[in-house]
């Protein structure tokens, strides 16, 4: 039970969540679920544990199952822990035509892991994803909110070195956090 009690948004995340809920008509607060799950994922280590999802359910006054069924449907929500930097490489048609498979192989060799795995030091998780709408600048990968495009092996090396050294956790959420409305 102690574990559950510890889960609470920071002051600024709480304020943002309240602003988000106000975007929808009275009685429609469930509409805030996806934005709040993004926020919760950013706040609580890059993934959604069951206590985290229960916490979001309590904020929106909905049943926990309503959160689980949504979190498990959308591919951006991680239901298991991930490394500090979640590297998501697109491999759908247009990216594949421009060499995505070679890029994936290169990252696997460089990090010493296969897709879906996390490096032992917890710095990187490698994931392959479906089309991210960057076909004209393929091959590409996403890390947090950032798109890295027109990739070559050299660019990948440079990026991974930089990300590994920074020690920062990648997050999709920097945008909503800065939002003032």
């Amino acid at each position: 039970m102690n574990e559950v009690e510890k889960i609470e948004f920071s002051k600024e995340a709480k304020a943002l969540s309240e602003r988000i809920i106000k975007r929808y008509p009275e009685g429609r607060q469930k509409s805030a679920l996806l934005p709040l799950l993004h926020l919760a994922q950013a706040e609580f280590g890059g993934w959604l544990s069951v206590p985290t999802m229960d916490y979001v359910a309590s904020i929106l006054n909905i049943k926990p199952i309503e959160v689980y069924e949504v979190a498990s449907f959308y591919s951006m929500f991680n239901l298991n822990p991930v490394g500090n930097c979640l590297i998501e490489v697109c491999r759908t048609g247009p990216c594949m035509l421009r060499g995505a498979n070679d890029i994936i192989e290169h990252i696997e060799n460089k990090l010493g892991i296969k897709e879906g795995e996390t490096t032992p030091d917890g710095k990187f998780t490698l994931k392959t994803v479906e089309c991210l709408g960057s076909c004209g600048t393929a091959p590409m990968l996403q890390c947090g909110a950032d798109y890295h495009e027109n990739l070559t092996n050299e660019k990948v090396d440079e990026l991974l070195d930089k990300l590994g050294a920074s020690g920062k956790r990648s997050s999709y959420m920097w945008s909503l956090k800065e939002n003032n409305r």
Partner: protein
Amino acid sequence: MARKLLLQHENVPGINTFDVYRKNGGYASVEKALKSMTPDEVMEEVKKSGLRGRGGAGFPAGMKWSFLDRKSEKPRYLVCNADESEPGTFKDRYLMEKIPHLLIEGMITSSYSLGANTSYIYVRGEYMYVIRILEKAIEEAYAAGFLGKNILGTNYSLDLFVQPGGGAYICGEETALLESLEGKRGNPRLKPPFPAIAGLYASPTVVNNVETIAAVVPIVNQGGDEYAKIGIGKSTGTKLISASGHINKPGVYEIELGLPVEEFIYSEEYCGGIWKGRKMKAVVAGGSSVPILPTDLILKTAKGEQRLMTYESLSDGGFVSGTMLGSGGFIVLDETACIVQHLHTFARFYHHESCGQCSPCREGTGWMEKVIHRIEHGHGHQGDIDLLVDVAKKIEGNTICPLGDAAAWPVASAIRHFREEFEYHIKYPEKVKNPKHFELEPFVSEKSLVTA
């Protein structure tokens, strides 16, 4: 040079800011509509323009607007579909990133016409940095009095919000999008009722693609008749095309509908020809869902007429020898590409993105992915090709939403036009085990060898 209606200011420094956008004529359509036109007059211009939905289906936008239940006492909503996820399509992202105020201006003018006082832009979650750009632009528009209460001193008020998705292709289907916006799984709804009657929160709702809403701006500014002068027949105006694959200049291009496909691929103004001096093998002209066509059929119709970038010309010949303009996701494959390998990525995509609601799609997409995977990797059986055709047929038309069709069409068309390549994979399993098989030894039709 082709006329540009959406991207004419794309290279103006600072065009993403309110001040620069305004100085370049931005928000004129809001002033014109709110101060000198009734909501119905705005809709009449959209009808006259012949504008068709730019998300892929190509349904006339003005007609869609006219279906909105105006007798209902419930609030009305305009929801912008910015869940761009069709492989090969990235035009909406480009437009929102470069000229966010164009979308916001279109949202205000369109919301006014539809009588919506709250509107949402549903953006795919992966475009989080684009969401930040839009939110900044929306703040600027509020500060300048173009959003909020009593816009420009009129009686009209509008609040505009951006909603992030969670990573699901299916949410580009309008009823799935509405489910998602209500905080649920993105399962498409049974229709009717259509969103125009019972959409968001069971209220009358119009869902339009980003590019469609942006096009309302030039339509209101110059008038629908003027807009309709561009293009051919029922394909009016300009269209954003996302060009990718084996071409020299991938990117987003605004074309006048009616441009010859050949010119689009080979002219320096657009794709700049095939990369590395290679020959073209095939084109997917309208996003991953539409039928793939071999070079001869994408450049000319089966009747021998020049193929044009219009809804009608691209679909000439039906699915036997034609395709669709779709979302304008234009993917070019050169002679070293493997049709089966390329198709496998699409089959995997649709399997991954099926919402699981209808069994023909949930099960069929998985079967197609597995069978194509084994053919591609040299484990194909005799009979697999016919099995694929059979599965595709059983999905098509048997699902609640068009994702099933979208998964079936690429498979059926690849086999229709490139059956020999599939047969090659089954005949020479050792050769295709190297994933770069056709780069090492480009595929040559054995039929053509015999006839030569």
